[in-house]
């Protein structure tokens, strides 16, 4: 069991002087959060609440101004394969076919060509793309590309998956199917996950916990145990879950929480 910990993490962008200068901006303030490897923590919040900054900190793309991020007690000092990121715009490499994209992390580790391709085949099958290994990236649909992106992240055998709105660019039908897929593949992999999303529904469906981030500066203002993902993993249909009264009540509650800040600003 691995644990990803944010301890008192703050992030401040320094003031920029000169042309196009900006005042110092506190993006995240006093974030405390723990994610265990049997969890999928969904982070929701309005635009500008610092969701993506939070994920970039976990990934090691950004360094916290204060506080520390650790994986099993070891401080995060930069990006690493123990925290693989899945991007909204898939970030697949167009000069590689689907198979070699998935094999990419293995190539970085120095795994021999035949072995890494064999492993990529296994992953292709796991994400339901057994026949698509030779396909160019641009020949794949948005949903297929995200499956490749997730398979590539899994090839790195990460302890945590950092999901930056991976389903944000998909059409509604594909998105529903991918939500179910994402839950199962995450459960199989044994990796913990942090999911950034602006969809309250998606956060509730997929998250073991839902964390609300409120803006200016970004603070964690609420945390909800969801648990619908267990129902879905046990075979309940996404549609049934969404229709249940308790789901609707939680959805309404979270919507209220997120928009409360907006009204304050307006008042």
């Amino acid at each position, binding site marked *: 069991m691995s644990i990803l910990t944010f301890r008192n993490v703050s992030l401040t962008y320094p003031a920029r002087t000169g042309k196009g200068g900006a005042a110092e901006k506190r993006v995240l303030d006093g974030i405390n959060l723990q994610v265990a490897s049997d969890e999928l923590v969904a982070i929701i919040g309005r635009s500008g609440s610092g969701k993506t900054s939070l994920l970039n900190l976990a990934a090691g793309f950004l360094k916290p101004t204060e506080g520390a991020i650790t994986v099993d007690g070891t401080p995060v000092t930069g*990006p690493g394969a123990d925290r693989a990121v899945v991007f909204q715009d898939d*970030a697949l*490499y167009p000069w590689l076919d689907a198979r070699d994209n998935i094999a*990419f992390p293995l190539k*970085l580790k120095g795994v021999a060509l035949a072995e890494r391709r064999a492993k990529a085949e296994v992953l292709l099958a796991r994400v339901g793309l057994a026949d698509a290994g030779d396909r*160019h990236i641009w020949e794949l649909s948005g949903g297929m590309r995200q499956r490749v992106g997730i398979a*590539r992240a899994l090839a790195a055998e990460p302890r945590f998956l950092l999901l930056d709105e991976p389903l944000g660019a998909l059409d509604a039908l594909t998105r529903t199917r991918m939500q179910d897929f994402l839950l199962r593949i995450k459960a199989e992999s044994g990796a913990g996950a942090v999911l950034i999303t602006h969809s309250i529904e998606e956060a509730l469906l997929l998250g073991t916990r839902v964390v609300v981030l409120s803006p200016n500066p970004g603070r964690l203002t609420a945390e909800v145990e969801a648990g619908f993902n267990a129902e879905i993993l046990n075979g309940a249909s996404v549609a049934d879950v969404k229709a249940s009264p308790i789901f609707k009540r939680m959805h309404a509650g979270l919507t209220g929480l997120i928009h409360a800040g907006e009204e304050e600003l307006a008042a």
Partner: protein
Amino acid sequence: MTLLSELDALAGETTDETPARAARPLPIAVISTLTVGVIIGLWALASAYALVSPVFLPSPRQVVIALYNLVVTGFVDATLAEHVGASLYRIFGALIASILIGIPAGLAIGTSRVGRGILDPIVEFLRPLPPLAYLPLVIIWVGIGEASKITVIALSMLPSIILSTSAGVRAVSKDHINAARSLGASKAQVLREVVLPSAVPSILTGIRIALGAGWTTLVAAELVAATSGIGFMIQSAAQFLVTDIVIAGIIVIALIAIVLEYVARLIERRLVPWASHR
């Protein structure tokens, strides 16, 4: 063209008399071929009626014969193939040299502030200079042999290769780089596995432009200082007023340039089919 045919189709619908098919416009390729035919025809007429002295403008027939003789017997101690071979040897030698220097230099400019600071003024100094301006200096430095020509051609090719490489490097998607880093790539691996492949389309475009610039410089350099090559052949022929060989040489230069451009485009399409899908 499609607009024209659509208009024709519309006209056909409204009048009901002329079938739309009758007014099918000429393809551009046909118009171009006709243009070339007319120019050659006018040229033939001008020389047939002796409107221009054959010393200034030999007939197309004479040029074709000159071309044939060039292939079979040659001119100034070498056949056409040998002259072309000498020229191609120089241009490809220069291309290899400028790729070996230009791509690392472009990477340095695109990835490092220090590299950019050092190399930018050099490239910006070299880029607008006509190669013939520094040819005499290069001859003083490295002599009149092959080295001077290859050096001058390589210098004329360098800026476009360096600039296209650095532009390609700077255009690399941030997500592509971050993805590699989060999948465990070291700095060197990011450069080799992400930055370089992603800059290849831009580098190939730079090479194509460089080939064009190099070819121009090559012919000019051979006009000034050479004992073989297609430019030298033209220069020698001009000194003896063998105008048919001059014109034949010019045609060969143009044809080779077209073939080089075509082959470069072909390589681009084969090597980076993904470039148009980003």
